C-alpha cells in the first residue's frame, strides 16, 4: 500500500546557546503507519517533538502536515489540523475528574465559545452529549471506567499514562505524537498499550510517530524506524534494515544498548 507522507520534516534546526539540539533533521512519516523515533538519550527526539508540535521555535527548516506548512504554528493550531501530541510525563489535570479530562480534549465544542453559552445553548448541549458518548467509549478502551469520576490526581502512574493516551484520541486526530508511552509501565500494561497503538493504526487509520526506548516493542509494532543521534537523523527505514545499519549500531554501542532482532520474541 503506497500512501503519501503525512508529516514531512525538512532540515529542522534548533540551537540552545552553543548546543545544536536538532541538526538538520529530515524524515517523512507515511500516512497510516506507525513510525518509531529512536536513538540514545540526548539525541534530540523530544526536542523534535516540541518543534513539530509548536512548543519550540525552529531556527531553520520546515514542517509540513498534509499540504499545510505548520512550521510556525502555535501548539493549539497544530492540534487544530489534527496533529496531537502526548507528554513524556503524563500531564493530566489533577484537579479535574478523569471524565472531565476526556471531555476537555474533544474538538469542535461550541460551548467553549462564550457567545454559544447564551445564544446557541441547544447545540452546546447536543455536542456535550456526543462528547460524553465518545468519552465513554475511550474509557472502556483503556479500562478506566471504574475511576471515571475520580479526580485524575488520585490515579496511579500507569493509569495516568492510559488517561494521557485516551485523551489524545478524544479529538479524533489524524496523527498522534506519542512521547515514550511505554516508559515506566509494567509489562502487562505495556502489552496492552502496544495492542492499542496497533489498533489505532489498523482500525482507525491514525498515523503514529512514537518516541520509545523499549526497543523490542519498537521492533514489534513499527512499520518504519527513524534513528536520531546528536540531533541528526542517521538512519531511516524498515526495522530490519535499521537494525543492521552500521551507523545505528555505532550510535547504540556507544550507549551499550542491544538492538533486538524483530524476529525474536523476547521474554
Amino acid at each position, binding site marked *: 500500500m503506497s500512501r503519501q507522507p503525512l508529516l514531512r520534516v525538512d532540515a529542522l534546526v534548533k540551537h540552545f546557546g552553543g548546543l545544536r539540539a536538532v541538526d538538520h533533521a529530515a524524515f517523512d512519516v507515511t500516512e497510516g503507519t506507525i513510525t518509531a523515533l529512536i536513538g540514545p538519550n540526548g539525541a534530540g527526539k523530544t526536542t523534535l517533538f516540541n518543534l513539530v508540535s509548536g512548543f519550540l521555535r525552529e531556527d531553520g527548516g520546515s514542517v509540513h502536515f498534509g499540504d499545510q506548512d505548520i512550521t510556525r504554528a502555535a501548539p493549539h493550531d497544530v492540534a487544530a489540523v489534527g496533529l496531537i501530541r502526548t507528554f513524556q510525563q503524563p500531564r493530566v*489535570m489533577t*484537579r479535574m475528574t478523569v471524565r472531565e479530562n476526556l471531555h*476537555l480534549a474533544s474538538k469542535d465544542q461550541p460551548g467553549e465559545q462564550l457567545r454559544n453559552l447564551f445564544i446557541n445553548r441547544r447545540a*452546546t448541549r447536543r455536542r456535550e452529549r456526543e462528547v460524553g458518548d465518545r468519552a465513554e467509549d475511550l474509557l472502556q478502551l483503556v479500562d478506566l471506567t471504574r475511576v471515571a469520576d475520580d479526580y485524575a490526581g488520585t490515579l496511579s502512574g500507569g493509569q495516568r499514562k492510559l488517561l494521557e493516551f485516551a485523551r489524545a484520541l478524544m479529538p479524533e486526530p489524524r496523527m498522534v505524537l506519542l512521547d515514550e508511552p511505554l516508559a515506566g509501565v509494567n509489562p502487562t500494561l505495556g502489552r496492552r498499550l502496544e495492542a492499542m497503538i496497533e489498533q489505532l493504526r489498523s482500525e482507525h487509520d491514525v498515523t503514529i510517530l512514537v518516541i520509545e526506548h523499549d526497543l523490542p516493542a519498537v521492533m514489534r509494532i513499527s512499520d518504519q524506524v527513524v534513528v536520531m543521534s546528536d540531533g541528526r537523523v542517521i538512519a531511516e527505514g524498515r526495522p530490519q534494515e535499521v537494525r543492521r545499519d552500521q551507523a545505528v549500531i555505532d550510535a547504540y554501542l556507544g550507549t551499550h544498548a542491544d538492538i533486538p532482532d524483530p524476529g525474536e520474541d523476547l521474554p
Partner: protein
Amino acid sequence: MNAILNAQFWFFVGITAGIFTILGLGLQLQFGYAGLLNFGHVAFMAIGGYTTAILVVKTGMSLWIAAVLALLVAVPFSLLLGLPTLRLRADYLAMTTLAFAEIVRYVAINEEGLTGGSQGTINLAGVGTATNYNREWLAMIGTVRDWLEPLLGDLASRDFIMLIIVWTVAIAAIILVQYLVRSPWGRVLKSIREEEDAAAALGKDVFRFKQQALAIGSVLGALAGVFHAFQFSFFSPADFVPIVTFFVWMVIILGGTARNWGVPIGAAVFAVLFAGTRFLDVPPFSWLESDERAYLRMIIIGLALILLMMFRPQGVLGKREEMVLE
C-alpha cells in the same frame, strides 16, 4: 453605642459584603479558575467608578447609561493589561498587574482636570465647585423608600434598599459565574490553570481564554466600583490603594478559591471583621483610640492572611483536593 443591635450597622456591613462579593467573584474567575495572579484588581473598581462619575459630570449623561458604559470600558482596559502581561510567569504577572493598578491610581491623583485629582470626585467640575454625580441614584432610592415606608416603617432606610439591590446583583453574578465555570468554556479555563501546555496541545488557544477570564473579571470589578460610587456618592484615589486588592484576595481565600459560593461567605466574614472593628465598641478595640483601632485592624487582617497560609490554605470552606494554592 451598642452597635450590634443597630440594624443600620448591619445593613452597612451587608452592603460592604455585597460589594466585596462582586469584587471577589471577578478575582475568583481570574485566579481560582484561570490561575491568573491578578494583583491589580482594584484598578477596575476605580475605572468603573471614575468612568461613571466623569461621564455624568462632564457630559451630563444619564447615570444609568454612564454606569453601563463604565462596565463596557473595563473590557478594553483589560485587553490593555492582558496583551503584554498574560504570557508572563505567575509572580511577574503579579508585579505587572500591581504596577498597572498603581499607574491608574497615579493618573487619578494627577490628572485633576479629568478626575478631580487627589481630592476626589467632589472636584470633578473644577476646584471649588462641589459636584454630585449621584443625583439620579439617590432620587431612585428616595422613590423606592417612599413606596416601602408604609410597609416596613423604620426599616425602609437607604442602606436597606441598597443592601437588597447589591445582593440581588451579587447573587445574579454568582449564578452567572457558576454557569460559565460549569460550561465547556469553564472547563478549558480550569485545564489552563492545571496544565497549560497540555491544554494547548489539545487545541485550546490559551491566551484567548486567559484574556476572556481577565475581561469578565474586570467587568465584575468595574461593577463593584459602580456600586461603590452609588453607595458613597463621593470617592477619591485613596479608595483604590493596593490594600483593597489584598482585601479581595483575602475574601477569596477565606471562602476557598475555586468555590463560587464560598465567595459571599468569605466576603461576609471579611466585612464583619472590617466594618465591625471600625464601629463596634468591643474590647480590645474599645480600649484604643480610633487611629490605633485602624492599625490593629490591619494587623489582624495581615495575621489572618499569614495564619491561613500556614494552617488552612484551602480556605475556611475549601476542600484539600481542590486546593488551588498548591
